[in-house]
């Protein structure tokens, strides 16, 4: 943007998405990075249950990266028009096609397997790119106040 024309309309649609967080994390930073995500998502206009849901979903991805993805990961959070997007990447061995294809809710007596299921359930969209070199999960939540989830 330039200041060349002082009479230009002040409402500008941003072309570059606004990056809010770009951080590496390991086990020791899980709680701290969740708090940062909460603050940034709230400042971006997410509130109430939709804020709680998005933060929990991101927490699950961070936890998966630390527990199954080689012990550390990378998180990016940014705003696109009308939505908040978060990407969590790790350098683990990837998620099997069988595991990824199974979208059923875990049985109530199982202590594991809830993380990815919850992340998908609690967000508006989830994309997973996984392979032997690692996993990248991108989740999205709408920011519009009149949006009804699912």
């Amino acid at each position, binding site marked *: 943007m330039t200041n060349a024309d002082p009479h230009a309309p002040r409402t500008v649609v941003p072309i570059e998405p606004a990056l809010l967080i770009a951080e590496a994390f390991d*086990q*020791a930073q*899980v*709680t*701290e990075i*969740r708090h940062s995500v909460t603050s940034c998502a709230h400042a971006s206009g997410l509130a109430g*249950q939709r804020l*709680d*849901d998005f933060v*929990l979903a991101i*927490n*699950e991805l961070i*936890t998966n990266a*630390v*527990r199954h993805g080689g012990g550390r990961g990378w998180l990016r959070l940014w705003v696109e028009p009308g939505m908040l997007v978060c990407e969590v990447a790790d350098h683990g061995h990837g998620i099997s096609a069988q595991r990824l294809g199974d979208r059923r*809710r*875990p049985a*109530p*007596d*199982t*202590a*594991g397997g*809830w*993380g990815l299921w*919850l992340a998908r*359930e*609690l967000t508006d969209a989830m994309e997973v790119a996984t392979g032997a070199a690692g996993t990248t999960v991108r989740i999205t939540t709408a920011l519009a106040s009149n949006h009804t989830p699912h």
Partner: protein
Amino acid sequence: MSLTVHTEQRGDVVVVSVAGELDMATAPQLQDQITDLLDKGRNRLVFDLADVSFCDSTGLSVFVRAKNSCDEAGGVVRLAAPQRGVLRILEVSGLVEVLHTYPTVDQAVAGEPSPASS
């Protein structure tokens, strides 16, 4: 981050009061306390969640494992007084009834027949 866990015998149950955020950093602490209680033969547990401000799948796993162990030993696990966010993860995962969730500690201790979810 810290979690505090306090236990108190009330009638035939042990009330386990948990305060703080339950995530992968703190869940092992709660797990240790539960293992300790089970080792002492305590298998009727009520978890007071009034001061738990956050619970993720790691926390959920601790409660599911506790329920499985207590069931096996002929005991019971009940949850009490979850805040909005904690109730949310229990609802989404379909565990409100499975984990016998009550609105108050007193109701959970009494173990009234129809647990309420809100």
